[in-house]
C-alpha cells in the first residue's frame, strides 16, 4: 500500500467508513500477526497482540499525522506490546519458581507456552525446536531487531525508526543476537531448513 493510497484510506476511515478500516486491517494483518507470532512463539497470543495493535491504530487515527507510515506505526506498536507480554511472562515464571524453590524444573519447559500446540509453531521438527530455543536466549530487544532485519527484511534505518533507537544501538543488538544464535546453533548449521 503506497503513501497516497494510505492517505485516501485514512481520510475515508476518519469519515466513519468502517469498510475502509477493514480493508486496511486486512492488508496489514498477515505481516502484523507474523511479526507478533515470531516474537511470542504462539498463534493465539500473536493474534491477540495484533488485534490490540489494530484497535490502538483505530483509536489514534484522528491524531495520525501520516508522518510515519502505518506499517512503521504497527511494527512499533506490536514490538512494544510483545515486550510487555514478555515481561508479564517473566513475572509469572518468577512467581512459579518462587513457589517451587525446592524442586528442579527445566526453565525451557516453563518458558514454553503450554497452550501452544505443535500446529501453533511456525517451524516444525527438531530443528525448529532448536531454533525456537535459541531465539529464547535473545533479549526481547535483540529478538525484535533480529526479526525485523532477518524475517521482515527491514533496513537498519527503518528498524531504528520503528524502535526509536539510535542506528548504532540497533546495529549492536543485531550483532549480539547473531552471536548468540551462532553459539546456540553451532552444531545445527545447514540442517535448519
Amino acid at each position, binding site marked *: 500500500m503506497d503513501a497516497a493510497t494510505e492517505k485516501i484510506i485514512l481520510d475515508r476511515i476518519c469519515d466513519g467508513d468502517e469498510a475502509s478500516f477493514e480493508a486496511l486491517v486486512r492488508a496489514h*494483518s498477515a505481516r502484523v500477526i507474523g511479526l507478533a507470532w515470531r516474537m511470542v512463539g504462539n498463534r493465539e497470543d500473536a493474534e491477540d497482540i495484533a488485534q*490490540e495493535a489494530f484497535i490502538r491504530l483505530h483509536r489514534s487515527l484522528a491524531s495520525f499525522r501520516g508522518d510515519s507510515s502505518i506499517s512503521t506505526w504497527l511494527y512499533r506498536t506490536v514490538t512494544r506490546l510483545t515486550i510487555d507480554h514478555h515481561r508479564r511472562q517473566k*513475572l509469572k515464571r518468577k512467581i512459579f519458581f518462587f*513457589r517451587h524453590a*525446592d524442586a528442579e524444573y527445566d526453565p525451557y519447559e516453563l518458558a514454553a507456552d503450554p497452550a501452544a500446540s505443535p500446529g501453533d509453531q511456525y517451524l516444525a521438527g527438531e530443528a525448529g525446536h532448536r531454533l525456537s530455543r535459541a531465539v529464547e536466549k535473545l533479549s526481547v530487544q535483540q529478538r525484535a531487531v533480529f526479526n525485523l532485519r532477518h524475517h521482515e527484511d527491514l533496513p537498519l534505518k527503518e528498524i531504528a525508526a520503528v524502535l526509536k533507537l539510535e542506528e548504532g544501538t540497533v546495529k549492536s543488538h543485531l550483532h549480539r543476537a547473531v552471536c548468540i*544464535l551462532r553459539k546456540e546453533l553451532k552444531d545445527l548449521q545447514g540442517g*535448519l531448513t
Partner: protein
Amino acid sequence: MNDQRQALSCQPQQLLLYYYADLEAEDHRQVEQHLQSCTVCRAELSELQKLLDAVPVLTPELSSVELDRFSARVVEQVQPQRRWFVRPALGLALAGASVLLITLNLHTLLPESAPEHKSPLTMTVDQDVLLNLDLLQNLELLEDLELMQQLERLG
C-alpha cells in the same frame, strides 16, 4: 588516505550488514575491498552466511479465510455498539490472566491440596506468597510502570 585506513580495519558489525545488503554504497564498496585482502573477515563472512542462510525466513501461514475472519473480528472490536459481545481486548485478557494466576496460587494453598507432600521450605514460601498477594499485584503494577518508563526512554 582515510579511505585506505578504513579499508584495512576489520569491522565485524559491517560484515553482518554486508550480508543483508544493508550498507550505503560507499560502505559496501569498502567492505568488499577489505574482504579481498583479509582472510579473517572472509572466513567470518562465510560463517555468517552458513548460519543465516540456514535460518529460514518464515512468515507463518494464515489462509485468506483466516485473515478475513481476523479482520472482521478487529472491526467488530472497534464498533462500540457491539463491543461487549466479543472477546475482550488484550488488556482486559491480561488483567484477567493475572487474577487467574493469583487465584491458582490461592487454590494450591487450600488444605485439600495435600500439604504433607510439601517440604517445610515450600510451606514457608507459600505462606509468604499468601501474605504478600497484594504486594505481588503491586509488583506487577510496578513492572508496568518500569516498562512505561523504559518505553518513554526508548521513545
